[in-house]
């Protein structure tokens, strides 16, 4: 139901031509489309009923993000998911976020650090100092949720955008991110011991990105199969080349596996296996998404090298999604650790 109406909305309002413009210039998304997504409840689907939403389970998250991925939608739903998950964990009010009254972004990792234990931002007397790097959805956010370090513990704080220095930019695969520089910025403490909540938000985010990749892969595959049928060379469709047929079939098989692991990870949200299953999922989707992207480009040939061809933007998103919230190697390390533990 939500999936269908969401897909319809995106088919109507997020066509490739529009996207190519809005995704790369400030504010790096379409405020109208954002409003429409909020109105139809795409954010409410990310939070459970006890906290003002009507979803919140792994499958709800996967459903929303698969639709976003299939349409290559640049709207900042990921930061909303991360923030909502953290607000709920902190017992704070996610209502204004879900209603679209306030946009949140989450400041996690820092320059040249890619692990939680490399966070150096400090909280001192209600003021935060540090620099958060590549904050997704940072441009135009009203509030930032900032993860700081207090000895071995991570704490969670809320900072008004007006109290931070925000340097916005587009990402190469579309959508906005920002450097968020905090110089003794006034902050409200939400959780003093936020380690588990942050890991849970990262898990939800990684599941969401995997599902987004899945949607994107399906579309990239469909575009490629269409192209193989239509494009003729040496007097016949290039899809009549057996080598291309076999490679395409391998993509079908791998995408079937990617869909399965998204289902697995979604079903394990909220269980003891959540983190490891999500890592399996993000690893496999990262691996498959890059293969699909590279093959989609290669089989399209030159046309896929142009900005005008939608497949080029799908390919960029599919490759770069791997770099968000831990890449295939990062998550493989976590799967390996499970095998190594006795």
């Amino acid at each position: 139901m939500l999936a269908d109406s969401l897909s319809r909305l995106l088919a109507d309002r997020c066509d490739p031509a529009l996207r190519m413009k809005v995704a790369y210039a400030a504010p790096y998304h379409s405020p109208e489309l954002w409003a429409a997504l909020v109105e139809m409840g795409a954010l409410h689907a990310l939070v459970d009923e006890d906290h003002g939403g009507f979803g919140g389970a792994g499958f709800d998250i996967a459903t929303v993000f698969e639709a976003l991925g299939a349409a290559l939608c640049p709207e900042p739903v990921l930061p909303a998911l991360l923030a909502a998950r953290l607000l709920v964990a902190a017992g704070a009010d996610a209502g204004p976020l879900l209603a679209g009254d306030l946009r949140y972004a989450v400041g996690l990792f820092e320059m040249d650090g890619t692990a939680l234990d490399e966070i150096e931002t400090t909280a001192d007397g209600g003021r935060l100092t540090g620099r958060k790097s590549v904050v997704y959805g940072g441009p135009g956010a009203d509030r930032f949720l900032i993860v700081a370090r207090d000895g071995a513990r991570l704490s969670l704080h809320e900072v008004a955008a007006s109290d931070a220095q925000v340097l916005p930019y587009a990402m190469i695969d579309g959508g906005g991110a920002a450097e968020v520089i905090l110089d003794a910025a006034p902050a409200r403490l939400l959780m003093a011991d936020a380690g588990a909540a942050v890991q849970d938000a990262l898990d939800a985010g990684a599941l969401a990105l995997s599902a987004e990749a899945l949607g994107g892969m399906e579309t990239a595959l469909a575009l490629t199969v269409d192209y193989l049928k239509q494009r003729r060379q040496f007097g016949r469709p290039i899809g009549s080349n057996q080598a291309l047929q076999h490679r395409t079939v391998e993509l079908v098989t791998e995408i079937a596996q990617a869909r399965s692991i998204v289902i697995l990870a979604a079903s394990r949200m909220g269980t003891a296996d959540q983190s490891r299953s999500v890592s399996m999922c993000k690893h496999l989707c990262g691996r498959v998404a890059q293969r699909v992207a590279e093959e989609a480009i290669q089989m399209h040939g030159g046309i896929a090298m142009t900005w005008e061809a939608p497949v080029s933007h799908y390919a960029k998103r599919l490759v770069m999604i791997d770099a968000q919230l831990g890449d295939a190697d990062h998550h493989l390390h976590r799967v390996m650790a499970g095998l190594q533990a006795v």
Partner: protein
Amino acid sequence: MDLSFTPEEEAFRAEVRAFMADDLSPETAAKVREGRTLSKRDMEDYHAALYARGWLAPSWPAAYGGAGWTPVQKHIFDEEAARASAPRLVPFGIAMLAPVLFKFGTQEQRDYYLPRILDGTDWWCQGYSEPGAGSDLAGLKTRAVRDGDHYIVNGQKTWTTLGQHADWIFCLVRTKADGKPQEGISFLLIDMKTPGVEVRPIRLIEGGHEVNEVFLTDVRVPVGNLVGGENQGWTIAKYLLTHERNNIAGVGFSTQAFESLLTHARHPRRSGRRLIDDPLFAARLARIEVDLEAMKITNLRLVVAGQSAGAPGVESSILKIKGVEVRQALNDLARRALGPAAAPFPSEDLDGNAAIVPADQAGNAAEYFNNRKMSIYGGSNEIQKNILAKAMLGL
């Protein structure tokens, strides 16, 4: 989608587990675990135990002894069987001839052959492949010429798995020489005690005897042994190819292989080091674990999809390609895990083999080489990909 099992399903799992504990011979299980060759008797005993429990042919119609299992029950059974190192059931009678008789056979044929399959009277083998004609049945050369109430059959079959134990063979034979090559093929049941049937072993890459050549010289076969009409053999062969791919993904076997490999890799060597702490090895194993976990869901999804569509279709090609990929990757890693100790040739010369590595791993290299067949037989990977390209992609 709910991926958890119902209480009824969990109860069924307990039943299967109890059966395996009680009725599967530990000696047989050890042989399976160690990759040793099973005797005919080992296989017959397991067959008999399943028959006694009513679980031998779960997907047959109830009237003929079927169990009426859901796909999930089938899946649970496969998992538990692999977990217990049960032998793989010889499929030729139960899973291949039987569906053909249900669909194309006469009532007499069903009444005569099916009970004998169940109670173990008849061991069946398959006579499809011929030298020089693998996936391409159009090249089939074995001829059956009508002579009164009999066909006179001449030709040669190959890759006949476990033919050395079989009582009967179902064969594709050419009954018409002219016309399109695939039109003149018939499906014939041949008693292997008939004069003129000779079975010769083929030695496999790793040294084992599992398949055979079957020579047919002036073999007289009653006309009543024809299944379906004359020249309907190609239709039957195609039916079998897409239907009834029992446990095609082999998820249970792979799970068992994964667990056993993980146990080995976690076991400290004499030096105290563990293989699993080698990050390159751990990465290989973790990648396979991820593929296998995904495969389990893919298997459930596609089995259910196939079930609701009536018969498994192109999904079975995906399951075969990826299922085999995972199993072969596990075989590769199991051999690799032993390092140079994988090298000894399995033979009776010396139990030097057993002396170097635990018995359940001594066959790892042999199993790796033997299982390269999996991407070749039953429609090679290449054939599966051709099918998928045509069916799913319209290419």
